[in-house]
């Protein structure tokens, strides 16, 4: 019997491998993953927004605004440097530098010290000279905003002309032209109106910061008008709490750690779903071809229907495993090619799936899931005479399988367990997906074993009934598989 099953499986496997759609699909995922970051980088707005400040008031308001945005940019750089230093244990590179101090909100003094030490260039230089091999380079990000010198011609215009000139600049869409223009009127601070012209909707954070700087300036001036000395007014405005910030180390926070640990399990669950849908539909095409080409009788003269069914399942499983092997090989190649950048991310992600027991569990649920779900495709293939007829049965089945899995994956991504995740774990149709996806969150051993046993029993029962349906349906060409007829075939003994 096994010989015939293997022969059928080999033929199914070779037939699917001969399909162009197989190779396209096989290569699309790695290509998409490789191109994704490139597109993201290309599409993402990496360039700083160009801002021009036109200060007609004669005050130092514009300078304060620019200084504040530069300070925020440096604070963000410090924060990123701090995470980098913490992740790769590089605090010893510059013990006194603010970015090797991780437990506080960086103050103006910290930023001054950072700038005095050479800013980001100085920090990168130190890191490069002392980072151990394999540690990726720190890549500074460009600031959100860059400030352009405002032209004198703009300053000479009245308010209405200014608005028209700003619009003309935006419409010209030049790479040197500002995207945001802030006009501080000649009567500021007596007239506190500030005109903001923007080529696009300005970010709320930009407006908030602008407002915060100018509010502080106005209040300082009001305090001075009320007799508070300039130094005291500045001190009042500058009084800020020293905020101590405690965050988990990179990858160490509960949420972040959960996400990292769930990457591989979720990917496994997703890959199982994808490869099942793909190989299942290819197998379905093969089954429909056997029926529509009327070669079933020739086959059944040589082999039992069960051998044909098991061969198809095995062939489909082999296709699925091949796809996963190729995708895993692509991931390994990417990890190798990027010299540790990806592997550094993958290492903690692989932790929850690296014990022998878990690997066995993954293989078990993967293979069981494949057989269990593929059998449904086999059953559909045995009942229909054409692909269009197959689609009619396929859509509800796919929705029934995929929708709960989508919710399941989202729930796990959100770090939520809950009744639905528990429930799906115990319903054999979704058990493989739920168990694989939950491996990162941690799943109790008894749940793992219990749901595995239940899944095995369900597949055994499924094989009996689908075997009957398969056998009874094979030679019933031209008969519409009504619900009643399907039930009859489920009950049909070999005849």
């Amino acid at each position, binding site marked *: 019997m096994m010989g*015939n099953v293997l*022969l059928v499986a080999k*033929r199914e496997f070779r*037939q699917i491998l*001969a399909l162009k759609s197989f190779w396209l699909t096989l290569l699309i995922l790695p290509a998409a993953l490789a191109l994704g970051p490139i597109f993201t980088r290309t599409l993402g707005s990496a360039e700083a927004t160009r801002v021009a400040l036109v200060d007609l008031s004669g005050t130092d308001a514009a300078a304060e605004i620019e200084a504040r945005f530069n300070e925020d940019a440096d604070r963000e750089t410090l924060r990123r440097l701090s995470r980098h230093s913490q992740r790769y244990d590089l605090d010893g590179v510059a013990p006194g530098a603010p970015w090797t101090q991780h437990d506080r909100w960086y103050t103006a003094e910290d930023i001054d010290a950072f700038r005095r030490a050479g800013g980001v260039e100085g920090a990168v230089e130190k890191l490069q000279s002392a980072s151990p091999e394999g540690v990726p380079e720190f890549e500074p990000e460009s600031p959100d905003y860059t400030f352009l010198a405002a032209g004198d011609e703009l300053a000479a215009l009245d308010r209405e002309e200014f608005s028209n000139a700003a619009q003309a600049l935006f419409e010209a869409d030049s790479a040197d032209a500002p995207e945001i223009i802030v006009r501080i009127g000649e009567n500021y601070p007596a007239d506190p109106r500030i005109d903001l012209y923007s080529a696009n909707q300005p970010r709320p954070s930009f407006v908030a910061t602008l407002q915060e700087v100018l509010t502080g300036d106005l209040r300082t001036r009001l305090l001075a008008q009320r007799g508070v000395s300039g130094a005291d007014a500045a001190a009042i405005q500058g009084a800020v709490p020293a905020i101590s910030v405690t965050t988990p180390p990179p990858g160490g926070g509960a949420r972040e750690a959960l996400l990292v640990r769930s990457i591989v399990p979720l990917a496994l669950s997703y890959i199982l779903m994808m490869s099942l849908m793909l190989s299942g539909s290819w197998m379905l095409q093969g089954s429909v*071809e*056997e029926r*529509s*080409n*009327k*070669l079933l*009788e*020739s*086959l*059944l*003269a*040589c*082999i*039992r229907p069960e*051998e044909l069914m098991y061969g198809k399942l095995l062939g489909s499983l082999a296709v699925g495993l091949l796809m996963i092997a190729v995708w895993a090989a692509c991931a390994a190649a990417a990890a190798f090619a990027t010299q540790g950048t990806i592997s550094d991310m993958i290492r903690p992600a692989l932790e929850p799936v690296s014990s022998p027991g878990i690997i066995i569990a993954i293989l078990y649920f993967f293979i069981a899931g494949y057989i269990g779900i593929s059998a449904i495709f086999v059953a559909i293939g045995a009942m229909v005479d054409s692909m269009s007829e197959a689609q009619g049965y396929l859509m509800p089945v796919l929705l029934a399988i995929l929708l709960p899995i989508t919710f399941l994956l989202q729930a796990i991504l959100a770090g939520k367990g809950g009744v639905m995740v528990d429930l799906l774990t115990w319903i054999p149709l979704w058990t493989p997906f739920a168990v694989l996806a939950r491996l990162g969150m941690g799943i109790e051993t008894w749940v793992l074993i219990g749901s595995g046993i239940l899944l095995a029993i369900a597949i055994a029962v499924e094989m009996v009934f689908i075997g009957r349906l398969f056998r009874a349906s094979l*030679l019933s060409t031209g008969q519409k598989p009504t619900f009643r007829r399907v039930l009859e075939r489920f009950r049909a003994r*070999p*005849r």
Partner: protein
Amino acid sequence: MSVLEVSNLVKRFGDVLAVNDLSFEVAPGEIFGFLGGNGAGKTTTLRMVLDIIRPTSGSISVLGAAPDRRQSSAIGFLPEERGLYAAMSAIDTIIYFGRLKGMDTATARARGMQLLERFDLADRAKSEIGDMSKGMAQKVQLATSLVNQPELLMLDEPFSGLDPVNQGLLENEILRASQRGAAVIFSTHVMQHAERLCDRLLLLRKGRKRFEGTLEEARAQLPAHIAVVSNHKVTALPGVHSADPVGAPVDGWQEWQVELDPGVQPESVLEHCSTSGIALRRWNEHRASLHDIFVELVGGEGVEE
């Protein structure tokens, strides 16, 4: 020992009695015609012999054992509804079916190539079935049923869809298999092929056997018709069922259309005439064709001469 023995076979599908108490045997080297109209139960019987479906009652013995796929290495089967994998090459298709019948790849390939050469398809061995004409694909399918040199070759309506040249090729293959010692069963609607090829025939009607035997024995089932010219009144002759005069007598000689009683041999009536001194100017026997026999026993529906 018979290659195939079928005893009291009954198959019911719900209320429909598809095969009703059917018994027959086929010996090695025998070509056995399985004739019947549409829905007579031919395909159902062949499927039961192949163990694709199980009988309601009765027994089947193939090479001395109950039907089982383990005997597939000794059976060749060409179904009525034919088709192959469109994306597989001709030789791969033959090898695949050979392997399913327990052959090793090398033998299946060698025999497959021999068959393709015989069928004038050797140069298309690596062509995909989807690129072949229907006739070519049918010959490849015939090769899949012959590749294992079966002891029992079953062909369900093998001549349908074949042009006259390929029908001749198929007849040769049937004779070749028979000469090799294989028992060959084929069902057909085309009486010419059955008349030319079959050693014995089985006529089925609505699942029930109406006749089994040689062509001569089948002919004996129908009353003989003889055109006689005599100056004697032939209606009184022993064994004559009826005698109708044809035209008017000429100089006392009358032509008669004579029908004998069933089972009465024309030779015995002729002998009686001779010994009784009855003068005869003409004695033309009209032998019943298989078509006549089929129409008489089974009904005319779905039969081709």
